[in-house]
């Protein structure tokens, strides 16, 4: 089972940031204060959707066929996701 990366603080619901990274080969640890990339603020399902969009070369028609839904359903999902990313990242 692949554990889910938490992005929201369970205590105060603010965005989490990365304070330590480690190398699984040589055990080197790097500590600091790194903010998570914008895409990490999305749910697993939303990230998969964006990956599928990328792999389909941006073809909503292809995505609709793959997901077994209609074209406007995929388009609406993409538009909602774009709106969400713009809001959370102040774009």
């Amino acid at each position, binding site marked *: 089972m692949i554990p889910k990366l938490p992005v929201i603080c369970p205590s105060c619901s603010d965005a989490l940031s990365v304070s330590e990274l480690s190398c699984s080969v040589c055990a080197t640890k790097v500590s600091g204060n790194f903010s998570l990339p914008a895409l990490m603020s999305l749910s697993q399902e939303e990230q998969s959707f964006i990956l599928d969009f990328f792999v389909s070369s941006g073809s909503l028609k292809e995505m*609709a066929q793959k997901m*077994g*839904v*209609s*074209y*406007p*359903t995929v*388009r*609406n999902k993409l538009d909602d996701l774009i709106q969400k990313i713009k809001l959370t990242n102040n774009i």
Partner: protein
Amino acid sequence: MSYKILFNPFERISEVKLFVFGLISLMLGSVLGFVFKGRFDGIFDLHFVDQINILNPLIDNVINTLILFLVFFSFGKYINPKTRMIDILNVSLISRIPIYFLSFSNFNGFISEVSNSIISKIDVDNITKIPTFEFSDIFILLVFAAISFIFLAWMIVLLWNGFKVSTNAKGIGNVVAFAFLIILTEILSKYLIITFNS
């Protein structure tokens, strides 16, 4: 899953399949109208007549579908420029299917006979006289009214769900506007059918 398809086929089914199905439904619905002497003289109307020709219900349905398409495509484009014509056309075609089913209520002239029986009891020369209706006639009419209401509600649900999927419409403002536009489409279709297809 199957009950969701009945109320919102627009989420899952491709536009080509919806268009073909909608077009066939319009043709079949028009044939049913002719067979059971039903006139679709408004978006939400079905009236049974004594005399009918094959083209009347077909032209009724074409007018009704076109009015729905023009009004809701215009509004759809206004709220979301990405709205596609084919999606709104499919909504216009598919949402009318429930009303075609109501044609069956006049099988063998059943509902027409009941209506005529009720109307015949009314003394038009003495309108203040309270008519004595047959209980069975009133009961049948009430049952037909209840069934009609259910099918009309189904039609409006299809119309709203289809519009919502086609335009990604959100918020109470769009719901209110949608309700007003439904009334507008009824008025427009009624006027056009009375003027050009009576």
